[in-house]
């Protein structure tokens, strides 16, 4: 018999015994506090008046024509604008919900891991708003390539702890956050940033992020029809699961996740866990993992710090295996090209994570249009804005 928190054969709770009672406590809070009218009212008021929800859908006509000049593949291209959330990405939906929960649980200290820094900034923001001390673990390499977010976290009063071990990226930051948590578990709340980690995090994070999909679905219906295709980038997979959840029951809607192919999925420099990983356990959950024949986790690579992770949330592993969602990938170069294209066509600077979703639109649209015998209505989760990536994007696009 499987333990708690499984999605098919994926998920579970693979942690040191010291953390099990804390995860049980969190799961109780998730079930007993989160759904109460008082909690929901407080969360939704903050999402409205502080985060700026609901976020709009933007129709991207110019981008659609640039990707699909003759109009044979794309009938309509809609962008769910999570970049317009306070702090510039969907991560605030989760951080605010979890920190309200932490406060209700009586926790007095917050820790988080971050890759690109968007979850770190969101957690530091929510901690400042709620008056909680906050420490964020970030790989030293990521601190260099996402320097603006490091400055933002510090400005917001958080302590940013550089992680020098391993690949000095998100995976190592999560290792260090887990070490902090196991040491300070009685007082400290660990705010996990993606729909990954041990049960109940994947379920908790998905439940806080599904507002993306619920709003987008309602907006599509207001416009007259469900989309044919939903596309989102996948690192750990929180924005993707957040938008997929609302459409999972709509059989006519195809779901696509786009992973980071780095220098190419046939090289050893990529982060395409669902395309090239094997079943393993990393950071407390059974899912697909990039690891070698001996079970050592291998270092991922992506130009995008937020996707540079050798694991993926367990619910995506199930969606992949059941075929309900399809996972493709985009390389560093394809993502950078897409970021430039979106900026010039639509006047939106997208995060490099998000740019991976945009890079895959053309191929997915052609495939879906062919299967459906008509141009497809496409919804893309624009998960975050790219201010943090300006150095990388401008260095790449300087001559273009």
């Amino acid at each position, binding site marked *: *018999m499987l*333990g*708690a928190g499984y999605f098919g054969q994926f998920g*579970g*709770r*693979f*942690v*040191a*015994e*010291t*953390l*099990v*009672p*804390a995860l*049980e406590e969190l799961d109780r809070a998730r079930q007993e506090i989160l759904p109460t009218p008082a909690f929901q009212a407080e969360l939704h008021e903050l999402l409205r008046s502080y985060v700026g929800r609901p976020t709009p859908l933007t129709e991207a006509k110019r981008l659609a024509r640039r990707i699909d000049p003759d109009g044979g593949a794309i009938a309509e291209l809609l962008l769910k604008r999570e970049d317009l959330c306070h702090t510039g990405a969907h991560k605030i939906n989760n951080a605010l919900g979890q920190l309200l929960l932490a406060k209700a649980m009586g926790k007095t200290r917050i820790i988080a891991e971050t890759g690109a820094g968007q979850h770190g900034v969101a957690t530091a923001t929510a901690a400042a708003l709620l008056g909680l001390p906050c420490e964020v673990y970030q790989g030293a390499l990521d601190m260099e390539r996402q320097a603006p977010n490091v400055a933002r976290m510090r400005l917001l009063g958080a302590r940013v702890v550089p992680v020098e*071990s*391993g690949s000095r990226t998100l*995976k190592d930051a999560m*290792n260090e956050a*887990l*070490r902090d948590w*196991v*040491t*300070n*578990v*009685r007082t400290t709340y660990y705010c996990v940033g993606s729909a990954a980690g041990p049960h109940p995090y994947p379920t908790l994070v998905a439940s806080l992020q599904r507002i993306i999909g619920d709003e987008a679905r309602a907006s599509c219906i207001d416009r007259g029809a469900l989309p044919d295709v939903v596309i989102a980038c996948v690192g750990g997979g929180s924005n993707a699961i957040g938008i997929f959840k609302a459409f999972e029951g709509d059989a006519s809607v195809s779901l696509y996740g786009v992973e980071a192919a780095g220098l190419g999925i046939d090289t050893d420099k990529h982060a395409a866990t669902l395309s090239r990983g*094997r*079943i*393993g*356990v*990393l*950071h*407390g959950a*059974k899912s697909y*993992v990039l*690891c070698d*024949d*001996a*079970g*050592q*986790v*291998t270092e991922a690579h992506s130009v995008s710090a937020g996707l540079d992770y050798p694991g993926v949330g367990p619910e995506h592993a199930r969606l992949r295996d059941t075929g309900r969602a399809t996972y493709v990938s985009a390389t560093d170069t394809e993502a950078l090209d897409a970021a430039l294209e979106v900026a010039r066509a639509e006047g939106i600077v997208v995060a490099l994570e998000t740019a991976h979703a945009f890079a895959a639109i053309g191929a997915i649209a052609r495939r879906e249009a062919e299967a459906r015998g008509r141009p497809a209505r496409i919804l893309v989760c624009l998960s975050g804005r790219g201010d943090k990536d300006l150095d990388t994007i401008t260095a790449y696009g300087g001559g273009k």
Partner: protein
Amino acid sequence: MHRIDQRFVELRRAGRKALCVYLCVGDPSLEASGFLALEAIDAGADILELGVPFSDPTADGPTLARAAERAIAAGATLERVLEVASRIRARSEAPLVLFTYYNPVLVVGEAKVARLAREAGVDALLVVDLPPEEAGPLRAVCAAEGLGVVPLVSPTSHAARVEAIRHASMPLDGAPRAFVYSISMTGVTGASPSDLAAAARDAEAMRRAFDRPVLLGFGIDSGASARLAAGEASGGADGVVVGTALARRIEQAASGDEQRRAVRAFVSELRRALDEPA
């Protein structure tokens, strides 16, 4: 009787506390770990934990994380650690516990790991990130090979949790009773010693709850702290586990000879301290 259970019977009969020594196998090399293990046994270790280095050791502090990095660089894998185990077994009857994170076991295959472990002369597995709720399949394949799976308890394990662990970790037919690993404090390996005397009293309560030997680990870094952690002769823990403090001595030694001398000296110090009348 299983070798590891026999060892606890002998220790109890002699009124001695068990000294369990953890070695990160492959640090500094696979060959050296085999020698260091035999040195530790010769100097008075009762049980050896043979650590499989893992790329993401989230329960370990910096010393053992560095040891794991060196061991991986030296080519250590779960299967190579078991080769070292079989070389130790050829020279010693000391109980051997394979100490690992779960991913190497899952990727190599639970049944294959259990079979290889039995062939190598290992007595039990301890999988640090595999709570008993997730350990059912591994316990079954291990029992089929005559191996135990060691459960862990922590200071955060409340009464209901202890009962759940006890229930889910009852020795299966064919498996040894082995022992329960009691973690002395909330933290990673190698953190500063906490209140070890209190931990020893908790360990005694665990022994009553589980009706199995209890070894206390984490934060034991000297003869004096081993003595404190073991507690009273008639109570306290059944023994102690020492890992980080040994890895630090191996790390700081300048040569292979110096490593062997350091292991011998430190294990002897622990042994003497544990054998002193309380």
